[in-house]
């Protein structure tokens, strides 16, 4: 299959117009010794029919199952309107909206996305998206460090371990030191003063990796008392339908993952990083920003703005190297949030109640929660012999949560379980029964 349509006659006429005899001549600049003599070592080309069959077969080797796993990637219902609208190719075959006059669709939607994120997080400015939650955190830390000039950050040990790893990579490259602020019983306590001494920021995740809701106000106050920024990470933004916006609880920067707004889990990507901050950070933000303006007739219009922060103008002094972000995912989030609207509160409460129901079902079978703390839609539960039990559950068609023992030795028999509207009340009982059956 080819997507070019050069007939031989066309080729001859084009070569004549260029003034060469063969296509080969066009590559004369590449030393002949380096040019490939034979073909590439690739599998034989497939027709559309064949490729579809092969890909369906590969898709069939995956078993998405009834999913009780969360931990930074969430299976939520995707209203039909989201797919129908986001799959309009005027959106998905466009490039970054450099030419504002023919990109008002993308620009307006991103302006809406920025507004949604500001409203949910309680912050002044949100950018047009980042790659994912972990890199949004890494960039938030670099922004904090850039503003404060202090090259140390304190990280709560209840942060998602993948985020911690990504942050470590970026901090190594930038010569920023990471200190761990220890919590207990599943949540951060007010960190010891020496953890915050001289730190540029304190990083807190809420709900944290274990599903527990942190006291963002108290932790932010502690950060501020030590002269540090409070960076709040959110990996399940549906929680913002119920929990206090971090911006109202003292956060200086809010970042994290917004995949669960209208995007499928898709084996972890594309994800949708979000980054929002107080007005004072506006000119230090990484990534694209869309602003409102007018056109030549005075009509309301939108454009990429404050671009002097960015790499294509400021080069090595840019606020970040980011260029392409996750535009289409941000569009999906904007459509999803339009559909969900103020119903986000009801959906958040529903998620919370479903998690409570699941926790109760498991508890009635003797599986105790690991932490007795307020939670949103995720909680950790103790299941003796967890790895073997999980394997059996997989055979029954479940994606049975996330094994905490993979990340922490002390939680070997613990499983992190997530409930959304995709796991209804009936699923809970069946799941708890299956766990009980296999844990014997």
């Amino acid at each position, binding site marked *: 299959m080819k997507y070019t349509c050069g007939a031989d006659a066309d080729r001859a006429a084009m070569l004549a117009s260029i003034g060469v005899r063969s296509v080969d001549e066009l590559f004369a600049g590449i030393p002949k010794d380096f040019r490939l003599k034979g073909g590439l070592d690739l599998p034989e080309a497939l027709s559309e029919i064949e490729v579809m069959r092969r890909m369906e077969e590969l898709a069939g080797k995956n078993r998405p199952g009834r999913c009780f796993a969360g931990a930074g990637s969430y299976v939520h219902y995707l209203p039909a309107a989201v797919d129908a609208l986001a799959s309009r190719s005027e959106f998905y075959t466009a490039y970054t909206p450099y030419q504002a006059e023919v990109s008002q669709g993308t620009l307006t939607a991103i302006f809406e996305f920025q507004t949604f994120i500001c409203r949910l997080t309680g912050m002044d400015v949100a950018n047009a998206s980042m790659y994912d939650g972990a890199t949004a955190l890494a960039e938030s830390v670099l922004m904090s460090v850039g503003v404060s000039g202090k090259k140390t950050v304190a990280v709560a040990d209840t942060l998602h371990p993948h985020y911690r790893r990504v942050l470590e990579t970026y901090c190594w490259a930038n010569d920023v030191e990471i200190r761990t602020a220890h919590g207990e019983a599943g949540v951060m306590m007010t960190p010891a003063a020496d953890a915050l001494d001289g730190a540029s920021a304190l990083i807190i995740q809420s709900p944290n990796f274990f599903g527990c809701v942190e006291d963002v106000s108290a932790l932010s106050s502690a950060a501020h008392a030590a002269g540090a920024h409070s960076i709040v990470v959110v990996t399940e933004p549906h929680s913002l339908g119920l929990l206090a916006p971090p911006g109202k609880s003292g956060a200086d920067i809010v970042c994290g993952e917004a995949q669960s707004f209208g995007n499928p889990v898709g084996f972890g990507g594309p994800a949708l990083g979000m980054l929002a901050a107080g007005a004072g950070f506006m000119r230090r933000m990484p990534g694209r920003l869309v602003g409102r303006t007018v056109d030549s007739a005075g009509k309301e219009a939108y454009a990429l703005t404050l671009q*002097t922060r960015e790499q294509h*103008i*400021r080069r090595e002094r840019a606020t970040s190297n980011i260029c392409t972000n996750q535009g289409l995912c941000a569009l999906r989030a904007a459509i999803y949030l339009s559909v969900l609207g103020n119903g986000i509160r009801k959906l958040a409460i529903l998620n919370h109640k479903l998690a409570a129901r699941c926790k109760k079902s498991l508890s009635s079978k003797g599986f105790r929660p690991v932490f007795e703390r307020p939670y949103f839609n995720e909680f950790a539960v103790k299941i003796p012999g967890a790895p073997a039990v999980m394997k059996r559950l997989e055979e029954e068609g479940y994606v049975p949560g996330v094994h905490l023992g993979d990340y922490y030795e002390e939680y070997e028999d613990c499983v992190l379980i997530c409930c959304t509207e995709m796991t209804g009340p009936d699923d809970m009982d069946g799941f708890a029964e299956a766990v009980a059956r296999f844990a014997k």
Partner: protein
Amino acid sequence: MSHIPDDLKYTKDSEWIRMDDEFTATCGITDHAQEMLTDIVFVELPEPGMEVAGGEQVAVVESVKAVSNVYSPVSGRISEVNRALEGSPELLNGDPYGEGWMFKIEMKAPRELDGLMDAAAYAAHIESES
């Protein structure tokens, strides 16, 4: 041709300086500089009280697609900055030598002025650059 007042001194980076009295001077960017930048959208000013050396970067001027550093023509202490530019950066385009002034400086060594260009020399300088 851009406007180059006779009574000012200039740097090769297109800053101007005007003596207010024996020790203090007012500085800004030239008409030529604002023309090259086109519409100025943002100005970052130094903090008053800051000690600077001649040639040290003290401010930033931005258009939509360009960033330009502004250097202090002489050494001294920044005594005052033009806060009006923060809300109305367009003053730099409209009146670079008047309402668009950027900062005042208490000079450490007024002799440094002797090393700067007069109007004729600056006019020749920008001619040679273009």
